[in-house]
């Protein structure tokens, strides 16, 4: 057996890497170096002298890793994702965007298979554009949450291999987020994370934001925006130290995090958002002078 581990090939003699384990099929993805094996044969059609000729099989899924977090505050929500595109033990891309800025109030972040992430994001973006044209207003957080759930369940028997978090501010201006599984089960919460570091980050957030498992009887103070951002950055840098599929620090040892403020929803990502994907909105009855003075986005590097 070749001791040199090549990306995409399985290595049964090495300990299995931790990975998201929702369904049994998905669980095997991490152990098979990124490619799922539904028929029990090798990922690639190779000839192995020890085991005889192998058969090719249909391999629709890959686990590209990544973690996404959303933490909601009183009137804001911080949505963050890491930027590593993994495939087994390899890193095909260091900078991938897992976020989709849907509108001023809603941001989606998705971990899992990048191809399904891209397609899901495309579908949702078009659906939101259609809603805006038909209804004359942006989709609210609650409406988007249901749309995403329905879109995922629509593919119940050939799912999008995606683990989503949706964050933003609702119609009352209060911050909320939603966590999803691959087929659309969702829950409205104040703090959620999913992806490969879920089991590492979620307990920290439960403790620091929700005050769970605190035995000193002190109530947890509500976090400000700056404190939330720092907490999320710390979560990622810690998770990145223990989870090979998540990166918390860039090559210089600094968190290369890029914050984009959208009115009351904040997006934190290690990758500059591609502005062409952010559609401008139908602005009813406003002259250019008025529109330009209402800057809805500020950006700064942290």
């Amino acid at each position, binding site marked *: 057996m070749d001791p040199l581990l090549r990306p995409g090939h399985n290595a049964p003699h090495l300990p299995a890497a931790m990975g998201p384990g929702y369904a049994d099929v998905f669980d095997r993805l991490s152990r098979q170096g990124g490619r799922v094996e539904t028929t029990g044969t090798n990922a690639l059609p190779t000839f192995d002298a020890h085991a005889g000729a192998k058969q090719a099989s249909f391999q629709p899924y890959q686990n590209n890793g990544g973690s996404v977090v959303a933490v909601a505050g009183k009137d804001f929500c911080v949505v963050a994702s890491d930027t590593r595109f993994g495939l087994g033990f390899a890193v095909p891309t260091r900078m991938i965007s897992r976020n989709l800025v849907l509108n001023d109030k809603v941001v989606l972040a998705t971990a899992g298979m990048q191809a399904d992430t891209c397609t899901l994001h495309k*579908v949702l973006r078009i659906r939101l*554009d*259609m809603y805006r044209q038909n209804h004359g207003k942006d989709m609210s957080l609650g409406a988007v949450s249901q749309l995403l759930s329905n879109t995922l369940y629509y593919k119940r028997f050939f799912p999008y291999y995606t683990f989503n978090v949706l964050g933003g501010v609702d119609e009352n201006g209060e911050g909320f987020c939603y966590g999803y599984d691959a087929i659309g089960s969702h829950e409205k919460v104040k703090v959620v994370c999913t992806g490969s570091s879920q089991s590492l980050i979620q307990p920290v957030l439960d403790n620091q934001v929700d005050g769970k498992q605190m035995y000193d009887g002190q109530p947890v103070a509500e976090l400000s925006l700056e404190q939330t951002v720092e907490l999320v950055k710390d979560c990622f840098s810690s998770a990145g130290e223990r989870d090979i599929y998540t990166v918390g620090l860039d090559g210089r040892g600094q968190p290369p995090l890029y914050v984009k403020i959208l009115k009351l929803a904040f997006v934190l990502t290690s990758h500059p958002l591609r502005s062409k994907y952010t*559609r401008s909105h139908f602005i009813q*009855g406003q*002259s250019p002078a008025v529109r330009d003075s209402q800057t809805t986005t500020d950006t700064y590097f942290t």
Partner: protein
Amino acid sequence: MFRNQYDTDITTYSPQGRVHQIEYAMEAVKQGSAVVGLRSATHVVLATLKRSSSELASNQRKLFEIDSHVGIAIAGLTADARVLTRFMRAECHNHQYVYETPMPLSRLVLAVADKSQVATQRASKRPFGVGLLVAGYDTTGAHLYQTCPSGNYFEYEAFAIGARSQSAKTYLEKHFESFAALSLEELCRHAILALQETVASSKDTELTTRNTALAFVGRDTPWTMVEDDSVEEYLLVLDAEDELEEGDADAARQQTQQPPAAMDES
């Protein structure tokens, strides 16, 4: 246009080689209220006159967003325009989904034209009774197109359709050569002045915030509509023009040393 025995059917030619039903459909466009469009190298502006059926009714909207880089102004049967709007939006979404790039205007207008043509060659259909001015900005620059019920489409530097649009076209013909280098503000000024030509002859209509709407799109400028109170600042150019005309009239009078015009002369 006189009634004759060859005009009942869309599938019947006249001996002169005309299909009268198509021409009648184009008449429907001329019944709609005026719509004016003009472009520079970087921006396109559409100005519309919104009609209302009564004081109680709202004024019918004539500007529609198709995508953030395209919009249309309609003249004619509003219901047909709704159908075409839905079709154009779907085409743009599809193109964006498949190619991850905004739909080029020429292809969008071609799709509308082909759809319109189908309706002129089926016994079971009638032509769309609406003309569009399609304004947009794509990788090849700013464009203004006109579509017809006949299935024809044309690109223009500036154009007007609808009732009394000839007056607007006359104004545009005088000034269009200067449009290419103008700023957005100046383009809007010309659009309002051109639109005003269509109501100048009629004594009881003037451009107000209620019956005027404006829209523009261009480089770094997504489709933006200006309606209701926001139109006010654009209509100020009309007051400025009036003052200018009065000023010129005064100067002319002084030059020729004629006595000022009497109050009952206009």
